[in-house]
């Protein structure tokens, strides 16, 4: 024991760090901040350190070459002992890191911690969020599979829409004319050198400010932040009633970080690593690329934006979002901190959470995409064919053969791109059905050139049968007048 102490003293005499470390560790914090709400920042840092360690371990095997990356991932998964576990830790660590950074941000926002004098801490935090998302996206590219390949295509298509410099931006992003070796190499450089460098720098500044300015006190309703008096008030909270950070507050951080590491490890063992999916071979087109979880909301949004508004929203939206986040501490640098007195702040968080949650949920089901194999793999349920005429059954055949089923569902089976057709005869008359099939419209392609008159007649005859047995199909007023006596469903 004495030997260890002697060695410690030997080093401290030369390093001269012991005193400042002890001071930093024992710096007083407001009593209320020893709370389970104050553990997310340190947990995010723990995740980041796990990512550094597992990232270096992966780099021992991974080959950042377009021709070999996918094979090296397979080797990691199957050829290197516990390679799959390191990949799983890195993948789940990434998801946990993004999630915890977001939770940390919400907590900081709701607790008013971005207000004076911590404006710059918040701004650096916004950059930390951006570089964390940058790490998540570039990491997804390094998992060089079909999703990564086509995901890069989506990125390039978005970049190309920037006015004037768009095409050059694409070449710069891809490192050439197509998604290829140069693309993977530059994303490797970004993921392994550039962005982590920024991340370490920002984390350093962020932490330094947290230490110098002190952790945000627990927001009490009615305790108003004013530039003139805040420093004095905070000094009283820390130095008169405060507690030393180590050990009185830090034990919760330590416990939570340990819990998060355990959760990542459990997920890694239980769910395993992410992919890789199919080989990044652009001639294999039987694929439906999807982004990773934290970009799913964007994937959904891109399906719902009207074509004309898409480019401006894609290019201007993120800029506005970032400006709003950066401007927040300047607009609301003073005033009430407690979320109990800030209904708009709470509402904003709820709105954003519900919005992103809904979009993510939708992206997991992709109702806007045609079900590419519905026409050949999902037969029309028998009840829609029972007791039908030959013409109507022929129409059902046309319905399958012309891939109507890819976009329209019957009895819940098939695509959801267009409306379900279970009761279509109730809302459209025969003439309207013919017009819709031939001319399309309302986001449906026109089938006039692809259907013979006989096929159209049969198809519409089938569609006319799609109504509940106890409800009559829609009829034209003229038909009603002419055939009032014989009006009965076919």
């Amino acid at each position, binding site marked *: 024991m004495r030997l260890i102490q002697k060695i410690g003293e030997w080093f401290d005499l030369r390093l001269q760090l012991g005193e400042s470390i002890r001071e930093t560790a024992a710096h007083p914090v407001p009593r209320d901040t020893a709370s389970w709400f104050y553990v997310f920042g340190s947990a995010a840092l723990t995740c980041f350190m796990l990512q550094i360690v597992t990232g270096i371990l992966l780099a021992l095997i991974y080959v950042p*070459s*377009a*021709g070999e990356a996918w094979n090296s991932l397979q080797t990691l998964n199957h050829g290197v002992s516990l390679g799959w576990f390191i990949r799983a830790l890195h993948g789940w660590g990434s998801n946990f890191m993004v999630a915890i950074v977001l939770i940390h941000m919400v907590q900081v926002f709701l607790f008013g911690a971005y207000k004076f004098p911590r404006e710059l801490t918040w701004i650096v935090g916004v950059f930390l969020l951006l570089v964390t998302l940058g790490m998540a996206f570039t990491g997804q590219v390094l998992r060089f599979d079909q999703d990564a*390949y*086509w995901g890069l*295509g*989506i990125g390039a*298509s*978005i*970049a*190309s*829409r*920037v006015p004037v410099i*768009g*095409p050059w931006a694409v*070449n*710069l992003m*891809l490192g*050439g*004319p*197509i*998604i*290829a*070796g140069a693309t993977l190499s530059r994303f490797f450089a970004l993921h392994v050198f550039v962005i982590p460098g920024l991340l370490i720098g920002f984390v350093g500044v962020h932490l330094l400010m947290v230490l110098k300015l002190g952790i945000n006190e627990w927001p009490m309703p009615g305790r108003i932040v004013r530039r003139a008096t805040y420093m004095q008030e905070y000094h009283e909270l820390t130095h008169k009633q405060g507690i030393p950070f180590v050990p009185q507050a830090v034990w919760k951080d330590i416990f939570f970080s340990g819990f998060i590491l355990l959760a990542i490890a459990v997920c890694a063992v239980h769910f395993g690593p992410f992919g890789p999916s199919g*080989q*990044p*071979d*652009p*001639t294999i*087109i*039987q*694929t*439906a*690329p999807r982004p990773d979880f934290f970009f799913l909301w964007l*994937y959904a949004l*891109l399906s719902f*934006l009207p*074509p*004309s508004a*898409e*480019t401006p929203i894609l290019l201007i939206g993120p800029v506005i979002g970032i400006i709003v986040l950066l401007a927040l501490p300047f607009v609301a640098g003073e005033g009430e901190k407690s979320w109990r007195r800030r209904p708009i702040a709470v509402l904003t968080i709820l709105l954003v959470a519900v919005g992103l949650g809904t979009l993510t949920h939708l992206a997991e089901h992709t109702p*806007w*995409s*045609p079900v*590419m194999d519905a*026409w050949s793999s999902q037969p029309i349920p028998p009840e829609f064919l029972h007791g039908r005429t030959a013409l109507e059954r022929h129409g059902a055949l046309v319905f399958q*053969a*012309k*891939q*109507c089923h*890819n976009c329209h569902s019957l009895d819940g089976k098939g695509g959801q*791109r267009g409306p379900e057709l279970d009761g279509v005869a109730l809302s459209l008359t025969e003439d309207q059905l013919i017009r819709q099939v031939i001319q*399309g419209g309302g*986001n*449906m*392609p*026109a*089938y006039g*050139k*692809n259907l013979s008159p006989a096929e159209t007649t049969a198809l519409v005859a089938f569609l006319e049968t799609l109504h509940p047995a106890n409800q009559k199909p829609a009829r034209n007023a003229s038909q009603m007048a002419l055939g009032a006596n014989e009006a009965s469903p076919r």
Partner: protein
Amino acid sequence: MSTENGISRRAALMKLGLLLNGIVGIFLAVPIVRYLLSPVTREKKTGYESWLSLGGLEQFPAGQTRLATYKNPVVNAWDGETGDIACWVRNVDGQKFQVFAINCAHLGCPVRWFAQSNLFMCPCHGGAYYQDGSRASGPPERGLFQYGYKIEDGKLLIKAGEMPTPGQPVAKKAAERTTCA
């Protein structure tokens, strides 16, 4: 030597040193920027596109649309499979052809051809195109990208080499051509 003189001399030397570093910095920055911009400058100088053969015409029967693949003209040894690019070839009437890029005009996902309904459909965000490449429905703002083509010695040649994206001037011109036709 007075102290005053000494200080001003050292201050001057420091400034001179900073100036020297600034000049060397600019000297280094120019090649670094040029190195970084090489994918852009290369494109402007020689262009990425060239004429490539998709194979004999007999592979593309009249009235049908078939998948074809080619090797990108600009490739590196380590590009692997990413150098192989697919495209859709439509033989309109035995004389006229249309060669569509595999990339959806919305965000670049691979479109699939459905010969039964004569439609191209995209698996990503639900874009659909008619057999002539014009937009049918969904989020795309325009029709499919088309490569220029020519026929030589019974072979179909296309001018390709760059991933088509909505912002490209070439792509925009092609879109105008499609709408005119």
